[in-house]
């Protein structure tokens, strides 16, 4: 498993965990940053998978 994808996924979870406890006025900031980290986790996962496939070839 790509460690970077796991790290980004963890960061996204931390952002989403703030939404219910944080101030309503700033919830959108946590949501946006969380989504950015989810996108990074996905991209990092796909990047690692394509690299490992090309190495096998």
């Amino acid at each position, binding site marked *: 498993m790509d460690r970077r994808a796991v790290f980004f996924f963890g*960061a996204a979870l931390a952002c989403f965990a703030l939404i219910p406890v944080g*101030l309503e006025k700033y919830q959108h900031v*946590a949501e946006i*940053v969380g989504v950015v980290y989810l996108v990074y986790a996905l991209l990092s996962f796909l990047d690692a998978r394509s690299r490992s496939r090309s190495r096998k070839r």
Partner: protein
Amino acid sequence: METLGVVLVIALALGFDYTNGFHDAANSIATVVSTRVLSPRWAVIWAAGFNFAAFLVFKTHVANTIAKDVVDQDILTIGVIFAGLVGAIGWNLITFYLGLPTSSSHALVGGIAGAAVSRSGTHVLVSEGLRKIGMFIVLSPLIGLALGLTITVLIQWVFHRYRRVERLNKGFRRGQLISAAAFSLGHGGNDAQKTMGVILAVLIASGHATANADVPLWVVLAAHSAIGLGTLSGGWRIVKTMGSKITRLQPVGGMAAETGAAVTLFYASSSGIPVSTTHTITGAIVGVGASRRLSAVRWGVAGRVVWAWLLTIPGAALVAAITSQIVRAFG
């Protein structure tokens, strides 16, 4: 006698701002020094100048948050503010001695909260303000990290076909001067305002200002001068940790980290959110390192920094609570 107390606490607040300068402001120049864009001497002069100039750019929203949104204003006496400052300064000096890049801002919030709670209990804490500050304790390094990473990836994407590497590096070195200036501006704008907030609280507590007064100009100028002078004194232990121990930086990485952190600080200052400049730049540096691979980040050092972050608010609160009880006993 009370006037003497007010003067003493204001002097202590400016002293805290000065220690903030040599403790936190080192972050402004760490990447510029580690990438050898500027010599240490010129880097501190550059950063201090922009720390001072920040008063021309930012309003005083952060100062109002510190003065009015951490603890109930009715409990803020000169003694409580004094104890809070002693807690913050004491904690800053301990972590400075240990070379840990902790947050002066959180030390201040922890100090004021600890001193107030030790006097009157937890009901004096302002939930809304603390939730806002708490939310951005977590978010500011994560935003800095995401921006540092995004800017690095964008730069790599735009310039990956460019073959004249030396010319490119020269351009990034020049760009780093601008990004360091922007970060120093953001740092001055956010951190100097915390001291302004403390002084405003003192003025309100002593009856020298009304409860909804804005920060007087002399307070703004004094706070920016103190942080600028602190930066001029430097904080080389922390520069070393920030600039090279977390991850090795090239000029392009330094520029991306400072720009990401500066954008975060600009947002926070304009929204009245006191954030840690240390957290923010650390996150951005980690983001730059993570754009290569996670093993480029020295996680041992980053982990040590995280522990220091977690301990800052309770540590400063404890020192402040003890001081508060001593002040009360002599009181």
